[in-house]
């Protein structure tokens, strides 16, 4: 067995892999396949959205008018910037700037926290306005509005953004952990795939939001 020589040459190589490239390629493919499962998981909710919006466009448009356009837009900006930071962090570690990598990841994670904060403000706003479906619903709507389906819009909104927020939270944790390891010098130009793979997860969370934003916030030209 020539393993011990390999271990010295290739830090981070797991024993069941023949070489670093196999390990890197495996971990990357694994994350991509996992992201496919996430596409299908969110996909079920996109289906519900599609079914009810196609049947009740008017109610959905009214619901969307009650979304906070500016908070939603700010959140989109936050996530897009955080994705840039994550991409830059991969570059940083590829050229050996591991401390910079850690800092960039940390700031990206903080962007995520900021995103959650804005969402919290938004949710509270909806609650105050009476737009939480169920016993606390008291949203002011004109006579003759299809209230039932405006509630349906908000229900789907809360479930979709709620599930997304859970994923953002997981992503924050993931980025923070990887940032910590990067700061501690675990990664190098020769071994940094965990940074890349965690980045993939974060970018996916961004992609989901890229679609949620127009679908939830931008249905109607009018804004309440």
């Amino acid at each position, binding site marked *: 067995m020539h393993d011990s020589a390999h271990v010295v040459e290739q830090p981070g190589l797991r024993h069941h892999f023949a070489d670093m490239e196999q390990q890197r390629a495996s971990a990357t493919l694994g994350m991509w396949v996992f992201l496919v499962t996430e596409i299908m998981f969110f996909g079920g909710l996109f289906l519900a959205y599609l079914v009810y919006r196609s049947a009740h466009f008017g109610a959905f448009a009214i619901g969307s008018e009650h979304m906070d356009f500016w908070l939603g837009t700010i959140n989109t900006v936050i996530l897009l910037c955080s994705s840039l930071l994550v991409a830059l962090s991969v570059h940083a570690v590829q050229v050996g700037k591991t401390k910079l990598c850690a800092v960039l990841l940390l700031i990206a994670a903080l962007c995520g926290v900021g995103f959650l904060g804005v969402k919290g403000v938004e949710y509270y706003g909806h609650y105050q306005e009476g737009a939480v479906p169920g016993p606390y619903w008291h949203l002011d709507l004109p006579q003759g509005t299809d209230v039932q389906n405006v509630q349906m819009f908000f229900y789907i909104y809360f479930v979709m953004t709620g599930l997304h927020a859970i994923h953002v939270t997981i992503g924050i944790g993931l980025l923070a952990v990887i940032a910590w390891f990067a700061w501690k010098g675990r990664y190098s130009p020769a071994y940094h795939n965990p940074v890349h793979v965690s980045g993939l997860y974060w*970018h996916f969370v961004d992609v989901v939001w890229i679609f949620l934003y*127009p679908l939830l916030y931008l249905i109607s030209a009018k804004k309440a």
Partner: protein
Amino acid sequence: MSEHIVPRKTYYIVWALLMALMIITAALSRVPLGEWNTVIALAIATVKALLVLLFFMHLKYENYRITWVAVIGGFFWLFLLLGLTMTDYLTRGPSGLAGH
């Protein structure tokens, strides 16, 4: 290391494009264009998603074909779920959804 190092400039350009597209989509959403609002918004979202997938997620620089197969397959399967289910909802006729 067989991994390609994407230059930072590429990332900045992609980010600028993403921000521009976001501003466009937000602005256009305020303009009443009827049916086209949805089409344009989704088209822009798709372009943004592609930018993130190809550049930030390095899909463009992937050596292995199977990654592409997985991503394309994943989205295709999503459309299968949406499309085939809608063959039911779109052809139900006037009674449409339950509760109507």
